């Protein structure tokens, strides 16, 4: 069984919670006692319907205020796939939460109310999905029952979204007309919309081809830990490098190059606690043994001599800022990239991007909470990185406030900076 990670975006008004509730309920992932608790709370609050949002709104403040504050993770499975769903709130801390929920997603579901069509929020969600390079975007045009299951209305919305999407980079775009409340096209195909020839949402989630989304070309193996047992007699001479394959396929016998030293050697073995392997691919966690004894430590990168990442201390990136304190030129921050921590200085702020209009505001002096902008950074030590478009693992970083230790920014690398 395969694993598919998805994120959902939209607000309560779009019927997102109803949709999630239906997916979970129809795939039998909601337990009776959980449903009982939700019914009791809905009733106590005076709702005239069972608010399925309460299933995911786990915090006291969320239940009391009837809003979703934080990303919630939900799990469901069908015989074909297991799904990890990041449910991101539409309003509060929208950009920060959506970027967080989308960072690990293979697919994002954006909900549109058929009566209202494309809104500012729809555009924002689509843009964030595109910025985070989520390979698959599904637009669910919801509440089709309230527009008489009208094909023309669906086509209008699709055309409008497609026109907007030409300005984004979305590899795979799918439109599904649904009614989450009535269950049309959510789990089963709807009898109300014979004009729609596509899959139901759940069927699409089960079938969408994700195997090709990973980068299996560019070998990248960030060293997580050097393993050198001392006391254990069986493995006294063992020297291995533990890590998770970030890109490409690593094979026994491969000629590899180690950064930053630049030495080349051969992969002698790929080992795990369950025995040796012939090859390893993302996102496998393995231990690599090399033919030569080299000076290698955490944060180093194993790659190929003829296919190396960019090596450098100056890079240009899109950054989503997640702190009340302003990011501006001269800010100094801690930065984590793969398994490497460095310090970074903000050298330039090119623009702030208006996520609703995609306009670039070049006059800003800083980025505030939930702003997205393009910056240049200089780091204290070289990073071994790729364009985020090429590899989401070696192209991403987080920024951390050196005083509070809070995570304050998410970065997607574009290219080296001058």
């Amino acid at each position, binding site marked *: *069984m*395969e*694993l598919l990670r998805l994120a959902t975006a939209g607000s309560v008004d779009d019927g997102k919670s109803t949709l999630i509730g239906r997916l979970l309920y129809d795939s039998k992932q909601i*337990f009776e*006692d*959980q449903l009982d*608790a939700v019914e009791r*709370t809905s009733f106590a609050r005076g709702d005239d319907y069972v608010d399925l949002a309460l*299933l*995911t*709104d*786990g*915090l*006291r*403040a969320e*239940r009391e205020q009837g809003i979703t504050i*934080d*990303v*919630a*993770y*939900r*799990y469901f499975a069908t015989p074909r*796939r*297991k799904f*990890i769903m990041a449910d991101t709130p539409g309003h509060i801390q929208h950009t*920060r939460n959506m970027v*967080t929920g989308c*960072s*690990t997603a293979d697919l994002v579901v954006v909900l549109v109310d058929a009566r209202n069509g494309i809104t500012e929020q729809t555009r924002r969600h689509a843009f964030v999905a595109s910025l985070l390079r989520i390979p698959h975007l599904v637009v669910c045009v919801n509440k089709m029952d309230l527009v008489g299951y009208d094909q023309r209305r669906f086509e209008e919305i699709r055309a409008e979204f497609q026109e907007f999407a030409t300005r984004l980079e979305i590899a795979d775009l799918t439109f599904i007309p649904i009614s989450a409340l009535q269950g049309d096209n959510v789990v089963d195909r709807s009898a109300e919309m014979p004009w729609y020839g596509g899959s139901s949402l759940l069927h699409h989630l089960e079938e969408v081809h994700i*195997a090709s989304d*990973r980068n299996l070309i560019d070998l990248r193996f960030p060293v*997580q*830990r050097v*393993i050198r*047992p001392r006391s*254990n007699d069986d*493995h006294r001479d063992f020297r*291995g490098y*533990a*890590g*998770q394959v970030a890109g490409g396929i690593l094979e026994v016998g491969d000629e590899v190059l180690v950064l930053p030293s630049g030495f080349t050697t051969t992969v002698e073995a790929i*080992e*795990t*606690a*369950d025995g040796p392997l012939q090859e390893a*691919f993302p*996102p*496998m*966690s393995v*231990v690599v043994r090399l033919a030569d004894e080299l000076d290698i430590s955490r944060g180093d990168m194993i790659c190929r001599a003829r296919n190396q990442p960019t090596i450098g201390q100056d890079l240009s990136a899109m950054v989503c800022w997640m702190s009340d304190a302003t990011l501006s030129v001269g800010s100094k921050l*801690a930065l*984590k990239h793969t*398994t490497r921590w460095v310090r970074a200085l903000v050298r330039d702020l090119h623009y702030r991007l208006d996520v609703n209009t995609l306009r670039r505001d070049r006059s800003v002096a800083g980025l505030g909470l939930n702003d997205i902008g393009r910056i240049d950074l200089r780091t204290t030590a070289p990073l071994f990185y790729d364009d985020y478009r090429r590899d989401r693992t070696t192209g*991403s*970083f*987080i920024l*951390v406030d050196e005083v509070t*230790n*809070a*995570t304050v920014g998410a970065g997607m690398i574009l290219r080296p900076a001058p």
Partner: protein
Amino acid sequence: MTYQLTHLDALESEAIHIIREVVAEFERPALLFSGGKDSAVLLHLASKACWPQSIPFPVVHVDTGHNFPEVLDFRDRRAEGLGVRLVVGSVQQAIDAGEVVEDPTPGASRNRLQTHSLLKTIEQHRYDAVFGGGRRDEEKARAKERVFSYRDEFSQWDPRNQRPELWNLYNGRHRAGEHFRVFPLSNWTELDIWQYIEREELELPSIYFAHSREVFRRDGMLLAIGPYSTPRDGIAEEEPFVATVRYRTVGDMTCTAAVESVAATTADVIAETAVARISERGATRADDRFSEAAMEDRKREGYF
């Protein structure tokens, strides 16, 4: 070759990555090991993550003094088998020393008292990262918790002020006196745990499988009759009877209930779990039933 991992392989790889990040970045990690199924899986993953070294950090158990003997026996054997040091924080000792006061109600749970002993153990040993077997599918408050979950110098969890967690880039930076709770099983479900136990042929305490036991009913749950939980006199509902039961979770005997089941093997349990209609905690944990926010409140104070 499709270069595609199964869901169990993907979850295992993610957990190993998380454990290795902690071993690489923290000075004094420890792993909470209760002898329950989730912590048994966690300990197994830790041994894989550290391989071929043995696990370089201790395992910690907070013993309420009301634990199932089968579970304590399993705990000791497992720790010895892996050659890891077992540190036990005793709730009974804390009660005897007058550090905490036990609820005098007969049958009252010591669950909440565990927090004191847990925090004391963490402080005493200056642990800076403590692995737990918590899963996000268990409970609503857990569904919102990070994999690397920050605790301030009072060990408090502030659910409204959590660090965003992006990609697989975990931020464990902290000041002296603060620590992290780390949950490598965050994305696992109860069914994943059982499927993994079957695949890896992991041993569990015998009470996870169907056995005959004298029980009584309280608040619709089946509680075992033992030294710490007895039916109250004169309450008809609590008339004891013998049933074939198993446990879905194992905690304090006073608040952990059994479910009627004939599942004798891991495969039987998987079949039962796949069609279960009541959640693991709803069926078996009296401690989470007090209020909608019972878990959130305990977690804020520093609970697991």
